[in-house]
């Protein structure tokens, strides 16, 4: 047994970890050690990747590429391959993953199981939109291959299926052609929430990537920085030197607190304002700004932190977002990373896919126990009222009724569950 935590470092329970050493061995391993749960990089924030006291199947050993067609950009690989490894190999060949989340240190299997999104949802949708097929091992010994047109029910259940329908062993991904690793970016000062929604709508047609950082200490104003970008042919340029900083230890108290937040937010605001305007930026710092700080999650101290990410329908987006920011400002608990963006109108791929048309707000909160949970209750009320939902990949505490209300296809999903797979999250939100 070994202690395993997730990115939020909220719990440190013992798990029995069994590593997959080859794709061919997956079926035998899961049949002989079930019940269990596939676990990749442990980069989800809450309990979706945990199975306290039980079995975890480590997927990182499934890190082989299987085939690549340089003409069509179709890549077949095992599920433990990291998104960053795909980018590093394929960008020099003129191909890139169409959708990447905030960190490149996640596995392909994890990206599918959480149906992750990036800053370009209005153009490219979610990760699952670019999966042509995947192979899924069930704990009863069966292995099936599914895709948008083959066993589409299994595919829709597995994309965004939180690892609960089986173990994803391999997948074929459709990459997209790019002129190189560079993005043409524009950084704008966003005076308030209205400005955000205006900029966001105005950028949808001409910009692939849009995202906004909100200074959540400025109350409900929604003051912040709006960033947008497009891939660009920028010739040969020196690539940024990977300067990896690291958080070497867990500080005794969270470094994110009332004393540090205001100066940080002011400084970040000032820095970004100074950078306002157009620039050519490498994709890595733009897509994955925190990947250069190894173990940054330790900054929140021994009790860990929560991330709260919700999406609310576009029609009520401005009011609901304002209400959320108000509640956060009132609580006096704030976040370094308050990210606001809009999702496009495409229908979700998976039955439990998070992304839906609307506005999504993501915030980190130091775990201050009851005080933090109380704040979440007031945020939940706003999300529930707005007809929105929370992102399971980030969640460690949402109430079951909010999950059920936010995911109307849950009952259909449950028919595809693998009875030999269970997680802390599935027990919390689905009863088993």
């Amino acid at each position: 047994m070994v202690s395993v935590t997730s990115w939020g470092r909220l719990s440190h329970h013992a798990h029995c970890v069994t590593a997959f050493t080859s794709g061919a061995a997956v079926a035998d391993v899961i049949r002989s050690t079930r019940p269990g749960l596939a676990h990749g990089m442990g980069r989800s924030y809450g309990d979706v990747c945990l199975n306290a006291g039980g079995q975890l199947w480590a997927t990182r050993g499934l890190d082989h590429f299987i085939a690549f067609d340089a003409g069509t950009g179709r890549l077949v690989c095992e599920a433990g391959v990291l998104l960053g490894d795909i980018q590093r190999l394929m960008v020099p060949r003129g191909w890139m993953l169409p959708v990447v989340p905030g960190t490149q240190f996640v596995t392909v299997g994890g990206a599918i199981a959480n149906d992750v999104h990036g800053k370009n949802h209005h153009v490219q949708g979610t990760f699952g939109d670019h999966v042509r097929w995947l192979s899924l091992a069930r704990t009863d010994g069966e292995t099936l291959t599914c895709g948008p047109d083959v066993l589409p029910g299994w595919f829709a259940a597995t994309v965004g299926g939180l690892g609960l329908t089986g173990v994803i062993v391999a997948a074929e991904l459709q990459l997209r052609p790019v002129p190189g690793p560079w993005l043409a970016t524009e950084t704008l000062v966003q005076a308030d929430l209205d400005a955000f929604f205006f900029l966001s709508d105005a950028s949808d047609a001409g910009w692939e990537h849009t995202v906004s950082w909100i200074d959540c200490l400025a109350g409900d104003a929604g003051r912040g920085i709006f960033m947008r970008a497009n891939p660009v042919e920028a010739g040969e340029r020196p690539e940024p030197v990977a300067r990896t900083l690291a958080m070497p230890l867990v500080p005794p108290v969270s470094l994110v607190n009332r004393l540090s937040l205001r100066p940080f937010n002011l400084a970040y605001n000032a820095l970004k304002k100074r950078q306002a305007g157009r620039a050519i930026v490498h994709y890595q710092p733009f897509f994955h700004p925190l990947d250069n700080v190894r173990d940054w999650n330790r900054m929140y101290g021994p009790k860990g932190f929560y991330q709260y990410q919700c999406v609310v329908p576009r029609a009520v987006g401005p009011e609901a977002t304002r209400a959320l920011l108000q509640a956060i400002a009132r609580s006096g608990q704030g976040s370094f990373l308050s990210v606001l963006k809009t999702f496009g109108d495409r229908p979700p791929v998976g039955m439990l896919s998070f992304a839906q048309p609307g506005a999504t707000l993501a915030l980190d909160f130091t775990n201050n126990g009851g005080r933090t949970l109380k704040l979440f209750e007031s945020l939940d009320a706003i999300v529930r009222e707005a007809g929105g939902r929370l992102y399971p990949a980030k969640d460690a505490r949402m109430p079951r009724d909010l999950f059920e209300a936010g995911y109307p296809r849950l009952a259909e999903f449950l028919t595809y569950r693998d009875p030999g797979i269970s997680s802390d999250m599935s027990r919390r939100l689905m009863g088993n």
Partner: protein
Amino acid sequence: MSARNKIVILGATSAIAQHCARLWAAEGAGEMVLVGRDAARLQVVADDLRVRGRDMIISTRVADFADPQKIQAFADEIAGAGPPDVVLIAHGSLPDQAACQSDLAACREALEINALSPVLFAEAFVGHMERANRGTLAIIGSVAGDRGRKSNYVYGAAKGLVTRYAQGLQHRLAASAVRVVLIKPGPTDTPMTAHLKSQGVALAPVEAVAARITGAIARGSLVCHAPAKWGLIMMIIRHLPWFVFRKMDI
């Protein structure tokens, strides 16, 4: 590593060997011969390397790892098509020490796969390399071979044999252009050590270990500890006086 090299890897499905091969594929090696016992697993490794490297000739070979005649014939055949630039001998398995003590068959198997087999392959290839007067032969030993410890001395003894063998080979070839590199990895995060990880042993990332190894092979270093800190740690452990060492639970 200059382009168009011919690299032969024994035990090509081992995690350390695979990561070395990935680095060579990225650098643009010309030809790789992957040798192992399991054809299906070799195929997985070969497919992976074909995606990672472009314009490489990759072949897979299932070989006998015990029979001296078959090993010699195999080396003759591979070298007959042109002497290899790099031979990496990476096969081995980490035996359960308790099993080796209670079951002599397990003990013998551990010695055969970790000591005899690597030596036979090295001897079979090195003659060809000596005649061609070029190439680098790299053998994966272990820090465990530096001093016998109760927790895994059968494995340690096998790796210690590899160490002495490599030293002798280096001496023999000192005047030639052939390089012999002895690699001593510390505990590395691979499937072979998965059970150690669950016991809380700190393991080095296999990518970093592989980068040290390919660097040492490119330079033709005599000995390569991977990660480097193990050079210092093992120097201390080798020199600990008996009255201290005997009480240590290692």
